[in-house]
């Protein structure tokens, strides 16, 4: 956006006159794009722009509220990771986007092209309508003929330009011997123009130039709305690939360099810092740490990692830095191979026919037959080809699907706009229709119902001295369990004991000495504890039995509410997770979900969803991990949070931008309403046709009646859609 703005302003004379900076080899400013799912008002815009601009190194920051994004122009050494905390401090959730992936959306030539055609059709139809009104209100003879000729002079070039998308679509359908919605449209436009020209040449009374133009205008409006929703969907997909910013640190001869993941090769040494995600499949060469595999398998328990262990792309390194040697990169990684499962499952979904397709299938042949019949009937009855052609044109114009063309796009635009304001992106065109049919909701656990961040559960079981000791050890580490422990214990008002020689041992935990005794906080094997199936950190003090600090995953905000809302709406909620029995049971009980499955493999998840489908249920799958992808694709409709892995987001129809889960239940509600509006719109359009078509067939339709029928039906349909907002 900003890049285009600059090129746009450069054309303004004032800027050309301004002294141009002599070209010098300054490092160019970088573009940073941030997704801000939480912004919604002018105060948000002002705060975000002020905070960003105040940050050193930022040259310019501009918020786009429609796309809920901020574009930042900054000095090259500034990273998005520096800006995110700035925004989080003032209360805005922010995610980094890859600006190179976003540029495609900004250069949306197709959208601009459509808008331009829409504008030409709109302005031309206004002018022609002005002339037509004078004809309808009584202009006769030479005046009428002149008005008709001027109308023709405006309408012909305007239609030649603005109706091109319809011509192209109709031609491509006819060439392969099919009929689509555009064939009757093109036929109506061309027939209307031909008969009107003929009539005008013969000083006839009726000309349909205005009808042909308004028809084009309303249909283009529908197309444009449709394009806008689809552009939002496409930009969603881009935004999603953009969420995972593909950079990695490569070590070449001991020197570290930051490179794009796409440029990594097999055999490269890659450094993965604590908190970083494995960019490729590989083998650990050096370092010791713990790995979080929850996105891939759903397990919440971190896995111990040291040299020799095989790692897969997507796993998160928790404590110590790891150097890995790449064994598979890019498309060959296990992450990408999993995505193939999706392709198989996806083919099942394309069978769904949307309401619009169903309507078009009935509509196109019907209109042609009706028009042909009235032509034949009038030709046989009157023997005059001119009258017969005029009536056939009137039938085509009046039945033309203005309202039908607007019925679906107007509703989906209103509905997706409403959901976008709540933080949901609709990626698939028919997602709303499918969402409206849902009767069973399948949830994944880790990362979906839970936030993936641990929470201390047995604070009260520990003696105050132990808590002080644990806090002293935990506060020096950035391991997620230590962070959670520190937070919980601090909140309880505990102050740390002073310890000597505190060190973090990557992969194991933290240790120190207190009064000459060694104390350790960390993994069970290291501290002498007993590993159970619940996430735990053990505190051992020399000469005493170790004690366990137990953790469970904290609930995502809105999880309980949305499960409750689904139950209230009479939909069944099911929990399927790859995690251990104990953890899944605890969560199911907490949320009141009766039907749950633990330790499910990715295939099991997909098979379960398929089973439900075979029982005739319409399944909504909500999941985020790689292990959910196949299930997401197999489900009738699917939702994933923005924190999900690429593959999962690609497989799902709707993406949740914020952290809160509660919009999901709301989305179902909106979808049901939207589908109802679409059906209503079809009914409204049909009623207009039922009234107007007989008039056209018996030859009573004048251009005035055609214009009235067309405009009122299109406007009623759009207004009906707006009720959804």
């Amino acid at each position: 956006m900003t890049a285009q703005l600059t090129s746009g302003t450069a054309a303004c004379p004032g800027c050309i006159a301004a002294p141009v900076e002599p070209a010098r080899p300054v490092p160019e400013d970088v573009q940073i794009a941030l997704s801000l799912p939480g912004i919604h008002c002018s105060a948000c815009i002002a705060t975000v722009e002020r905070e960003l601009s105040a940050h050193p190194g930022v040259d310019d920051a501009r918020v786009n509220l429609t796309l809920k994004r901020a574009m930042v122009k900054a000095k090259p050494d500034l990273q998005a990771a520096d800006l995110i905390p700035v925004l989080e401090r003032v209360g805005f959730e922010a995610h980094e986007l890859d600006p190179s992936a976003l540029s495609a959306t900004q250069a949306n030539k197709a959208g601009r092209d459509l808008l331009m055609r829409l504008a030409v059709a709109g302005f031309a139809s206004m002018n022609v309508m002005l002339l037509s009104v004078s004809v309808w209100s009584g202009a006769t003879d030479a005046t009428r003929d002149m008005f008709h000729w001027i109308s023709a002079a405006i309408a012909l070039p305007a239609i030649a330009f603005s109706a091109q998308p319809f011509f192209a679509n109709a031609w491509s359908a006819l060439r392969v011997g099919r009929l689509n919605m555009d064939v009757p449209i093109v036929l109506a436009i061309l027939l209307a123009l031909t008969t009107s020209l003929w009539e005008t040449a013969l000083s006839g009374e009726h000309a349909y130039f205005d009808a042909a133009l308004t028809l084009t205008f309303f249909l283009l409006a529908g197309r444009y709305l449709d394009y806008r929703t689809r552009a939002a969907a496409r930009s969603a997909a881009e935004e999603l690939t953009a969420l995972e910013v593909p950079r990695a640190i490569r070590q070449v001869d001991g020197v570290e360099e930051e490179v794009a993941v796409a440029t990594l090769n097999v055999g490269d040494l890659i450094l993965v810092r604590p908190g970083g995600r494995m960019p490729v499949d590989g083998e650990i060469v050096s370092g010791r740490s713990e790995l979080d595999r929850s996105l891939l398998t759903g397990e919440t328990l971190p896995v111990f990692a040291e040299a020799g262990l095989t790692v897969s792309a997507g796993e998160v390194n928790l404590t110590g830095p790891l150097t890995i040697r790449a064994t598979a990169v890019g498309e060959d990684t296990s992450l990408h191979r999993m995505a193939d499962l999706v392709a198989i499952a996806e083919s099942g979904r394309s069978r769904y026919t949307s309401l619009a397709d169903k309507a078009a299938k009935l509509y196109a042949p019907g209109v042609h037959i009706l028009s042909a019949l009235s032509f034949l009937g009038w030709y046989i009855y009157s023997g005059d080809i001119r009258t017969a052609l005029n009536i056939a044109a009137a039938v085509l114009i009046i039945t033309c699907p203005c309202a039908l063309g607007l019925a679906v796009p107007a509703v989906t635009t209103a509905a997706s706009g409403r959901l976008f304001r709540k933080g949901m992106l609709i990626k698939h065109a028919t997602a709303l229709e499918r969402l409206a049919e849902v009767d069973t909701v399948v949830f994944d656990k880790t990362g979906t119902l839970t936030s993936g961040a641990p929470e201390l559960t047995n604070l009260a079981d520990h003696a105050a001295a132990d808590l002080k000791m644990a806090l002293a050890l935990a506060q020096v580490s950035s391991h997620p369990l230590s962070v959670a422990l520190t937070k919980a214990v601090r909140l309880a008002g505990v102050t740390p004991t002073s310890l000597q020689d505190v060190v973090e041992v990557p992969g194991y935990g933290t240790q120190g000495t207190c009064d000459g005794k060694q104390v350790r906080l960390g993994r069970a094997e290291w501290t002498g504890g007993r590993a159970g199936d619940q996430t735990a950190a053990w505190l051992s003090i020399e000469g005493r039995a170790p004690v366990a600090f137990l953790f469970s995953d904290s609930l995502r905000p809105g999880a309980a509410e949305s499960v409750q809302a689904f139950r209230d709406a009479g939909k069944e909620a099911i929990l399927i997770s790859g995690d251990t029995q104990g953890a899944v049971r605890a969560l199911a009980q907490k949320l009141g979900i009766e039907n749950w499955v633990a330790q499910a493999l990715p295939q099991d998840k997909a098979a379960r969803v398929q089973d439900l489908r075979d029982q005739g249920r319409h399944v909504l799958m909500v999941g985020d991990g790689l292990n959910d992808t196949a299930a997401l694709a197999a489900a009738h409709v699917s939702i994933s949070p923005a924190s999900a892995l690429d593959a999962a987001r690609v497989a799902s129809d709707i993406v949740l931008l914020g952290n809160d889960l509660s919009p999901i239940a709301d989305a179902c509600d909106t979808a049901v309403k939207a589908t109802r509006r679409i059906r209503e719109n079809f009914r409204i359009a049909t009623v207009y046709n039922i009234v107007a078509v007989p008039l056209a067939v018996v030859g009573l339709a004048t251009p005035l009646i055609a214009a009235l029928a067309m405009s009122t039906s299109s406007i009623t349909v759009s207004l009906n859609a707006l009720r959804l907002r």
Partner: protein
Amino acid sequence: MNVLAYLIPISLLLGGVGLGAFIYTVRTNQYDDPEGDARRILSDEWDDKPKQ
């Protein structure tokens, strides 16, 4: 009816001006953020002079 000789060209011209203005707004990306622009008019910042 002579008045038509003036009025028709004038109406066509005005229509053309409107179209030209619209094309200008499309080309300068003025429809990129309609919601944000609607809200920005409420902000007091840059009230005295435009942002450079």
